């Protein structure tokens, strides 16, 4: 779980400069039927990392070389009726935090938005590729 720890530490440092937001070290589990990131809006939650290992180069003498795709999702929710002014720049900072993971072949951060009733849920999917 090293990537999550490193990324969480980076987010805690980065988000500290945004007074309207905070970072939780807890996982975004469901408490009382509601995910924590919806229950505690304006708090960034980082999910467990998922590793997918597959063959990158297959060789005849079985000296195969694997690639690992590590996926980690971050969640943060805000009130759609009263969106904090720092939201956009904070989301950019969350995406930029992907560079803390090194060395990797590729580091992507994809932001998606979902509206649930009067709550906007932002999720950032980090994808790290190592070989």
């Amino acid at each position, binding site marked *: 779980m090293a990537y999550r720890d490193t990324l969480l530490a980076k987010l805690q440092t980065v988000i500290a400069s945004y007074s309207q937001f905070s970072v939780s070290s807890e996982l975004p589990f469901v408490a009382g039927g509601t995910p924590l990131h919806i229950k505690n809006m304006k708090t960034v939650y980082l999910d467990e990392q998922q590793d997918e290992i597959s063959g*990158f*180069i*297959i*060789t*005849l*003498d*079985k*000296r195969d*070389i694997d690639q690992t795709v590590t996926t980690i999702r971050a969640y943060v929710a805000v009130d759609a009726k009263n969106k904090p002014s720092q939201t956009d720049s904070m989301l950019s900072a969350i995406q930029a935090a992907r560079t803390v993971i090194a060395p990797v*072949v*590729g580091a992507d951060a994809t932001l998606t938005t979902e509206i649930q009733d009067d709550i906007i849920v932002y999720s950032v999917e980090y994808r790290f590729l190592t*070989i």
Partner: protein
Amino acid sequence: MATINVSAGNEAVLVLAQSSANANFTANAGLVVPSMQDITINNSTGVFRWKTLDSTAENAATTPATNQLSLNVVVDTAAFFGTGTAGDDDVKEKGLFTVSKEKTAVYFRAYFDGTNSNSKYLSGVGYISGLAPTVNPDAPLWVTPVTIEVDGDYTVGTV
């Protein structure tokens, strides 16, 4: 009759060496090319065709073959640049790149089904060419094609 399945335990093996004797895998002297992704053995004969007035179809005869081994490998430092160990077989000592650069003839044995007894192989002598190591950010491992331009004919053998 039997198929040759390299996923069933044995594998295609290519040995390169300075002499025919060293190219024998059991001599444990030549360079066993590591991390081959694929290998193709070409025996491409030319064709001479002619037509006659009394025939409705062309006649054909084959002409001497162009023989060539082509493979793709992941670059291995010792195999590509050599072990540098005096006393090793020259191909092993100098590596694929230097042998290609110096245009030195190499003896080869291409085993079809591993090196155990009864495995078939093709042997011969040729020159390494076509090295083109490449790497990029999305595929950050050096890989290179290797071509062995065969000088003369193949010899079929059995381990």
